[in-house]
């Protein structure tokens, strides 16, 4: 009887749209799901809803003006995006920034990473139905945004780096604020573990779900904590150190399970590593200038320049082709979110829709980064 019904009515496979307006896609991402009952057969991401053609806009802007556009790509690690462009332009000009700039940039990078991971942690809990984490994550992130506001002048789109250095010197109470933050976070991060990591419902929903193998991570180009949770050692801070990352010692967090829970763990442990980097640097900010003087109109020599950095989501590559004019001929961003999104079909196949939410959350997608 059941077989008859199944054959006579077309009940086998059907499509639904997840998004573009869906709370757990964290932006305007549309996923076309092919389902069999509740089992996912195929996921087709449709992107482009917040495409602002940043790469094209870069072609009409001068090198100083490009920097502020990268704020709007991956807005949660915008300081790191800024730095990537500045490093590429600086390498093209052949200028060496002062040590002070390198250390301050590294400190702000790590603050950005912590703040991004705190937001991710809050949203991850919220996606799985624990609204409390959202408030706790934002509470601790607020201290970091206050530091940014005092130092850079903005809470989210900081635009603090300029080719050649920094826009302003750091305020006098900068070190003290970071020390306070470290004390605060060391007290609060264990709370996160009690609240969510050790929670039995959370563990049941994440352990063994969405397994990404190391081979797939490499072939799809999944970087960042998502790639490292599959055992792919891809931390640019280790592989190709920039700024002050040569001076500091930190562990690259690697897991080999590749499931949702290890991706979650990788980010939590990365926050601890970032705190240890901050501890090493905060008392060792060298004296000196906060910028190297560049010409008012920067013209890169004819050629191609590439710089990659480790954002909170993975590897960001900035590729600039210059034809010797004051505007770049072509700018290409290799954004981590784009590669991380398209592995979704591989790892969420055979899961349930509720699992897909958890998997997507640990990939930590920022849609403006994917669309650019």
């Amino acid at each position, binding site marked *: 009887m059941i077989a008859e019904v199944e054959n006579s009515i077309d009940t086998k496979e059907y499509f639904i749209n997840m998004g573009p307006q869906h709370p757990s896609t964290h932006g305007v991402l549309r996923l076309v799901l092919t389902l069999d009952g509740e089992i996912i057969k195929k996921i087709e991401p449709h992107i482009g809803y917040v495409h602002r053609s940043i790469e094209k806009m870069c072609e009409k*802007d001068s090198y*100083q*003006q490009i920097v*502020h*556009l990268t704020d709007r790509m991956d807005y949660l690690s915008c300081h790191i995006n800024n730095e990537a462009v500045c490093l590429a332009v600086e390498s093209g000009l052949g200028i060496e920034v002062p040590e002070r700039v390198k250390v301050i940039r590294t400190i702000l990078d790590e603050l950005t990473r912590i703040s991004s991971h705190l937001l991710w942690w809050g949203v991850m809990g919220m996606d799985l139905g624990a609204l*409390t984490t959202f408030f706790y994550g934002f*509470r601790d992130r*607020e201290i970091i945004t206050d530091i940014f*506001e*005092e*130092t*850079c*002048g*903005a809470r989210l*789109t900081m*635009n603090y780096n*300029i080719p050649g250095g920094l*826009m*302003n010197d750091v*305020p006098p109470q900068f070190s003290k604020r970071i020390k306070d933050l470290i004390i605060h976070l060391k007290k609060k991060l264990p*709370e996160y573990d*009690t*609240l*969510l990591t*050790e*929670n*039995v*419902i959370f563990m049941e929903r994440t352990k063994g779900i969405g397994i990404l193998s190391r081979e797939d991570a490499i072939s799809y180009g999944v970087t960042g904590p998502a790639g490292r949770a599959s055992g792919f050692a891809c931390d640019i801070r280790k592989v190709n150190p920039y700024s002050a990352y040569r001076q500091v010692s930190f562990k690259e967090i690697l897991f080999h399970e590749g499931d949702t829970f290890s991706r979650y763990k990788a980010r939590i442990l990365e926050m601890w590593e970032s705190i240890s980097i901050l501890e090493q640097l905060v008392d060792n900010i060298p004296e000196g200038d906060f910028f190297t003087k560049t010409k*008012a109109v920067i013209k890169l020599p004819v050629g191609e320049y590439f710089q990659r950095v480790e954002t909170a989501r993975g590897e960001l590559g900035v590729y600039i082709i210059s034809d010797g004019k004051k505007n770049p001929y072509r700018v290409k961003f290799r954004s981590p979110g784009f590669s991380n999104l398209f592995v979704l079909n591989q790892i969420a196949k055979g899961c349930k829709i509720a699992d897909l939410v958890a998997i997507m959350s640990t990939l930590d997608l920022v849609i403006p980064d994917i669309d650019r």
Partner: protein
Amino acid sequence: MNEVSEYIKDVAKGVKTLLGGLSVTGYYFFHPKEIITQQYPENRGTLKMFDRFRGEVIMPHNEKNEHRCNGCSSCELACPNGSIRIVSKHLLLENGKKKKIIDQHIYNLSLCTLCNACVKACPTDALKMSQEFEHATFGRVELIKVLNKTGSVVMEGLEE
């Protein structure tokens, strides 16, 4: 028998972790002083933004209604979004020569991304970022501002 004891152990472990989570939220329930939420419109009087906070571009004037802008258009060129436009006029001097002076410094806040490029580019430090952040208006036209006040002149010694 073994399965039953495993099951009970699992349940006990699960309950323990849930109670652990509840103890964290319970702590904040009984310690309201740890809550950092601010009541925004109510605390307007005491709310102070940081000095570097970028709210909007302003042009400070002194008490003699003088500003520091000589109309060199550096900010106009530095702006990535075209939110600044400088309108200059020609003044006929006594000796018959013409002199270019600034007429209007038009700033369109609705296009501005508050990137600070204009303030950095200004050679005479005429522009500044203000800490004002309440920009809501009833029309987009109100966001187009003329930064130099009517009748204001450029400070002595800063003319081009």
